[in-house]
């Protein structure tokens, strides 16, 4: 057995955690699958919060002249709703998929930097908690009345400058109190988490692919992940600079966005949307990747035009950086700029159109199985087309002037982000449920969820188009009786509650099936990609034997050949092959060593909010000490980490085989 003394005596501050189970097993894990699962649950928790905020918004708007929320409460709700949905739900839940699936799909045992992966998760968690703590500690100024005012006056309130944080609104002059500091520092922390994981994924994809997995043999989902990682890599630094600028404006006295001193508020918009437009592809490309895996599996056909889908994805990524000013047509940019950005925006519809064409081509003539994942993927394609079309109408500058800041825009981006991204992500959640849990979900509840969602969704966001065209203004908490907008608004609110019902059905299905669903075979969908060659749930070491790939859809080709008409014909040896996968996967022929758990990633995360609070309250007695304590925690953790080897002999679950040859990463095997 391992000798504790030789481990702790050597050079770490803490005794190294050596258990992969229980509470501390989760806190200290460096296993990409566990981290993926934690990402998923945390993001879903934020989805619930963001959803509740949306419901509060909709209750307020359900009738004309309503006084359910005050103006400032409404501002806080839509700001935190948008911020939460984007930064705390869609991005992290995509990261959950990346984490869990990327190594499996490229045939690797782990990501390139396992502990870095844990770091990005913990920074995300603590960044999110920090942002939400503004509801408890933040201040906006004197309360104004309304149902939450009593609570708000005691507890402060949430950030209220919009998820786009437009200066000078978000500056000190118009946003006194601390809530916008919470917002800007919180987003900075969350951005750091995404930056770290994007570096990790890029290195993983370029260095860790299984033998034979050439770039153009990677599943589309892996490709879209890679594009997203590059988008993050190049767009996050820009928003980081912008957030630093607004934070400094508010706390240090810089003048970047203060027009009364020569500052330039439009600059905020340029920086913000230079990040913000690529961001919408960051949100939707993972879902496109998922759909590109689901449609072929349930149509029992290869993806139509694989290279076109890949290159279109990359093109969308590149072009995403050249269209940002279409968010600023109404901000006083020059006509030439407007024309240029209008055109470039229309051009980006081309690669998007290619993708849609390829998805339809995939379904066309396939033997379609309408399981829940397939329903959600089809829902994605349909809703995304509607959202895309209303998007094209914004690229026409005069039309945009009419539509901007009305509910037409709100309808548009919800069709893209909810009808698109969220439908795609739910499709993925159902599709990979068996792999995650080892059980099957209830198909009945799944389909019910889809239809409730589908009806609720269209009831909510469809009427918003005409509400907007009839002049209902966005980001306003109240409208007058005489506008006649009341009835449709009531419909919209009812739709929102139907959506909430759908989420409830999903949660019931998930928690029930996870425990009681029928045991899942390891390839329940007769799928095409590598993760389905593994037992369900996936064992800790992923692949018992490192796979070797010879073609795109390698797994499929091992199961099927083609007849003269190109129809798939099951190979006679397929059944034996599958049995062997299962057998070997459960009993690896030799012991496999995995990265050890570590406390440091968690501690790095803990340090983040300390620094944040320290910065916000630097004018009080405990601000600076807290700042220093946080910085010491972070730097100290990294130093502790630097001297802690990734793997230590005998400290893993194979400790009963002490003689196994084992390379320590820094050559200090004992």
């Amino acid at each position, binding site marked *: 057995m391992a000798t504790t003394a030789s481990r702790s005596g050597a050079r770490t501050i803490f005794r190294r955690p050596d258990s992969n189970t229980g509470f501390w097993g989760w806190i200290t894990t460096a296993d990409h699958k566990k981290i993926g699962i934690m990402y998923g649950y945390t993001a879903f928790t934020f989805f619930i919060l963001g959803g509740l905020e949306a419901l509060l918004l909709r209750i307020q708007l359900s009738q004309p002249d309503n006084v359910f929320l005050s103006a400032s409460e409404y501002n806080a709700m839509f700001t935190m709703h948008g911020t939460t949905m984007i930064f705390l739900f869609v991005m992290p839940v995509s990261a959950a998929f990346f984490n869990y699936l990327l190594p499996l799909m490229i045939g690797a045992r782990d990501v390139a930097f396992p502990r870095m992966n844990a770091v990005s998760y913990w920074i995300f968690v603590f960044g999110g908690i920090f942002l939400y703590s503004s509801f408890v500690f933040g201040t906006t100024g004197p309360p104004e009345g309304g149902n939450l005012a009593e609570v708000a006056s005691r507890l402060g309130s949430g950030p209220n400058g919009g998820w786009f944080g437009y200066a000078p609104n978000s500056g000190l002059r118009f946003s006194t109190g601390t809530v916008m500091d919470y917002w800007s520092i919180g987003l900075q922390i969350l951005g750091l988490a995404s930056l770290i994981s994007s570096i990790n994924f890029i290195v993983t994809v370029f260095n*860790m692919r299984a033998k034979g*997995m050439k770039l153009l043999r990677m599943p589309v989902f892996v490709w879209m992940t890679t594009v997203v990682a590059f988008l993050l*890599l190049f767009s996050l630094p820009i928003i980081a600079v912008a957030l630093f600028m607004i934070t400094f404006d508010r706390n240090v006295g810089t*003048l970047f966005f203060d027009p009364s001193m020569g500052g330039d508020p439009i600059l905020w918009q340029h920086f913000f949307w230079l990040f913000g437009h690529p961001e919408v592809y960051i949100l939707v490309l993972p879902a496109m990747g998922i759909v590109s895996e689901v449609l072929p599996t349930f149509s029992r056909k290869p993806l139509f035009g694989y290279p076109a889908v890949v290159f279109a994805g990359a093109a969308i990524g590149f072009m995403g950086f050249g269209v940002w000013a279409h968010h600023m047509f109404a901000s006083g940019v020059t006509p030439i700029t407007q024309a240029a950005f209008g055109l470039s925006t229309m051009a980006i519809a081309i690669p998007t159109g290619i993708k849609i064409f390829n998805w339809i081509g995939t379904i066309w003539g396939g033997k379609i199985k309408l399981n829940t994942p397939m329903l959600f993927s089809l829902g994605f394609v349909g809703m995304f087309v509607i959202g895309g079309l209303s998007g094209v109408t914004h690229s026409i500058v005069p039309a945009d002037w009419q539509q901007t800041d009305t509910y037409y825009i709100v309808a548009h981006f919800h069709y893209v982000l909810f009808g698109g991204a969220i439908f795609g992500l739910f499709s993925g959640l159902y599709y990979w449920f068996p792999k995650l849990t080892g059980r099957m979900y209830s198909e009945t509840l799944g389909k019910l969820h889809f239809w409730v969602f589908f009806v609720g969704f269209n009831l909510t966001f469809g009427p918003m188009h005409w509400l907007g065209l009839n002049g209902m203004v966005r980001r306003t908490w109240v409208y007058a009786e005489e506008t006649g907008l009341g009835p449709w608004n009531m419909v919209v609110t009812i739709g929102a509650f139907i959506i909430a019902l759908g989420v409830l059905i999903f949660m019931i299905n998930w928690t029930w099936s996870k425990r009681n669903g029928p045991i899942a075979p390891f390839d329940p969908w007769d799928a095409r990609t590598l993760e389905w060659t593994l037992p369900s749930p996936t064992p800790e070491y992923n692949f018992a034997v490192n796979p070797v790939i010879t073609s795109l859809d390698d797994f499929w080709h091992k199961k099927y050949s083609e007849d003269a008409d190109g129809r798939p014909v099951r190979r006679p040896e397929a059944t034996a092959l599958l049995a062997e996968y299962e057998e070997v996967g459960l009993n690896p022929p030799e012991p496999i060593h995995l990265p050890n758990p570590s406390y440091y990633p968690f501690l790095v995360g803990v340090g983040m909010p300390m620094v944040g609070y320290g910065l916000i309250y630097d004018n009080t007695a405990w601000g600076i000490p807290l700042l220093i304590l946080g910085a010491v925690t972070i730097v100290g953790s990294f*130093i502790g980490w630097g001297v802690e080897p*990734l793997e230590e002999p005998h400290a893993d679950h194979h400790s009963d085989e002490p003689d196994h*040859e084992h390379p320590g990463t820094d050559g200090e095997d004992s």
Partner: protein
Amino acid sequence: MSDVAHADGHHDVHEGTGIDNRKLGMWVFLSSEFMFFGALISNYMLFKGRDYSAFMPTGQSVLLPRGLYDIPFTSVSSFVLLMSSLTMVLAHDALVSGDQNRTRVWLAATGMLGSVFIGGQVFEFTEFVQQGMTISSNPAASAFFMLTGFHGAHVFFGILMLLSLYGISKRQGGLTEVQGLNVELVGLYWHFVDIIWIVIFTIVYLIP
């Protein structure tokens, strides 16, 4: 920095770039830093040429960074920083030839040169503030302090990393071959920070 998946490294076969994970990771990270400084530099360029006289209280003149530079002074401190890239290369060289002592000396020298550069920057900043140009004087001054300040912070982190390398080199086993890669990584970062400084120096100080 030993955060690399080597699970069963001795019989894993990969289709990869052939570049070590950590090195590739550093390259990827630096490409992102490139965007970061790109945004800071364009921010400065945007603000430096504007006329702020309309926003000043009557009777006060606008103090702009370019009115206050002491170019010979900054040239010297830039030269010091450039030299530190050289000593960094020498440190790596020494490591490759297996000379731990010499490695340590050159690492220390690099850190010293970096500190001299930061010292110069601190002196320059206090000088500017004494002459009346603070971070709140006008947006051009804000942008100047932000850009050069972030660069200084990067140099500072580089010095911290050099110190850790120095510490590691004192430990039993010292800078082994694998740790040698760490010297290379810190070197990459250090050269990047240097190159960025040359760009900043040219754009901010030399181009009128």
